[in-house]
């Protein structure tokens, strides 16, 4: 199987077709890590580049991300923990008192597209729920959002709760939302701030590369 066909199908956002190709590849005894690294990830890289160049737009990018996610659901159990490209697990949610979720959902889809196992815990989540989810899923990335200035401070409370639970160092924390700024992210002790759903993945990738 020519793995570049997988990339092309991913860029075209054909989810069902892509999943079939990935399943066939595994049946043909192609190493799952190769399917990921030589098929899916180059496809998503191309999507990212096309988007930045203004050749692809949100609905197209998200279709590709969704296709990636559906194929990853199949492929992930077959990958070894140390396979490059197995990005890890992300918890994402909207803080207590806030029921706005479109920005967070867009970000979640983008991270799924980047190969993360994303657990979207939803809207109006208490500090404890965030902490419990981080513990339970042993995630390495936590994303939070708030649209309201009234709920924004809750993101800082969640970070404090992570500290109290002794698991702050386990996760990289990224935050976003219309009233949120980089300065605010620093103030509350978040690691990263993304001004929009689209840039979140790149910002995270760059940060983690520099860290390692």
């Amino acid at each position, binding site marked *: 199987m020519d793995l570049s066909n997988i990339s092309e199908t991913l860029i075209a956002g054909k989810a069902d077709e892509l999943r079939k190709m990935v399943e066939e590849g595994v049946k043909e005894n192609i190493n799952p890590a190769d399917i990921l690294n030589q098929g899916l990830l180059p496809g998503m890289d191309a999507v990212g580049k096309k988007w930045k160049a*203004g050749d692809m737009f949100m609905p197209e990018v998200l279709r590709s991300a969704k296709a990636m996610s559906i194929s990853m659901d199949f492929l992930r159990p077959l990958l070894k923990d140390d396979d490059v490209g197995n990005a890890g697990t992300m918890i994402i949610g909207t803080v207590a008192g806030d*029921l706005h979720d479109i920005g967070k959902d867009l970000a979640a889809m983008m991270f799924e597209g980047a190969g993360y196992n994303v657990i979207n815990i939803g809207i109006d989540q208490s500090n404890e729920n965030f902490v419990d989810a981080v513990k339970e899923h042993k995630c390495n990335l936590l994303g939070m959002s708030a649209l309201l*200035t009234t709920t924004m401070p809750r993101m800082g409370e969640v970070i404090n709760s992570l500290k109290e639970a002794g698991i702050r160092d386990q996760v990289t924390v990224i935050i976003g939302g219309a009233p949120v700024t980089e300065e605010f992210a620093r103030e509350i002790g978040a690691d990263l701030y993304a001004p*929009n759903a689209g840039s979140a993945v790149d910002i995270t990738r760059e940060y983690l590369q520099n860290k390692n």
Partner: protein
Amino acid sequence: MKMNQTINKSTKFRVLSDDQIEQIFYAALEVLERTGGMIYHEEALELFRDSHAVVKGNHVRVPPYMIEEALNFYPRKITLRGRNNVRSLHIQKDTVTFGTGSDLPFTHDRKTGERRRTTYQDVTNAAKLVDALSHYDFFMSHGIVGDAPNPQTYDRHQFMAMLEGCTKPMVLTSVDGEGLEDLWKMGCLVQGGEEEFRLNPLFVAYIEPISPLKNDKTAVEKLLFAAKKKLPAMYTPCPSSGATAPATIAGMLVQSLAETLMAVVLCHLKSPGTPLIMGGVTTLLDMKYSTYSYGAPELSLASAANTDISKWLNLLMFSTGGCTDSKILDEQAAAEQMMNLFYSYLSGANLIHDVGYMDHGTNASLESLVMNEEMMGMVKAFGKGINTDDDHLALELIEKIGPAGEYVTSGHTFDHWKEWFMPKLQDRSDYETWKQNGSKTMLDRVKERTQHLLDTYEPEPLDEKLKKELKEIASAADARHS
């Protein structure tokens, strides 16, 4: 005697035909019957359970006859009185009024040119400008008081900042039901008691659902409080086409109307006759930057269509104009603000808000408020239409002046030229004069006028005793939430 005459006393503009509005209305009824909405509030769920609505958990579906019945009970006229004691804001069909938007977290700092958090003082300054500028009929806070002692009680402090600078009627946001109750108590103090407030409300409560079809606890609390006290309120869906609503304008209008009608039924169940105003910031999600656009031409088109729907339903309309996605007051800002200001005005929406909004609803700018004053004047001059009575046809005058005459010195000109729009900021000078006057740009003039107004305009001060009483309500709220 002339028979069967039609005289256009204003210009006319309409997007949707009656048949199209019917299509959208029936579709919205279908949405509420089939898809329903989510309600996160126990008392509201109880009200729906006691009615013919079908409630499963937080999910509520409503049969059309409940909506049709409820629609018969909404007032078609609401009149607000500012603290200046003038009943100036007449919210009724085809009467257009302009006002600011509210709660912008950032402000364009006029000294540094940088973006920073909005403060109490910024809100008071915006209040002063709105009080001074005649085309603003009502005031929303423009910015949010980011330096309030506690975000959970910011609304009381924000109302104080607004009252200090502005004597006009207002539209207020609130944190939750408790916050709105405090604002109402403060309003009653200003107007001279609960009964006076009922006849002369000072403000309309701004409330919004979350698209698609979600009604969160705080929004419903506020709605039910408004219904209980017969406090004027608006329920304003903010769908982003393509993200939280269908990517088609028709689909977005259907969903937005369904969201409105859910509140129409809920308020009716709580207390028939609630002065509820229909609303909507109906626009799209930019598919490159995932921002909620305030400058898209689709906002103008969808908003005007929404106003057509409101009139057909006999509901009052809270619409949107004078806003932009531009980060600074530049050519983009002028183009976008003018476009949505113009079409919202022509559509005949009753309250047009968000005038002066920058950076897709995140950045406040006092200069933007001042520039929009000029643009509102221009738009209104267009909306006047053309008088064609004998005096205005001027047949006698044309005969009197004759071929090769002049009109500058005629009495007719002296009487009528004042009907024209008088620019304060537009420059119509000749090149040499413009150069002699310093070659100023529009922005230069806007900046000067903003500074001049802030330096010279003094709003009627708040009575000291009243101010103290109002502050007590805010302090009590701070104490409860500390």
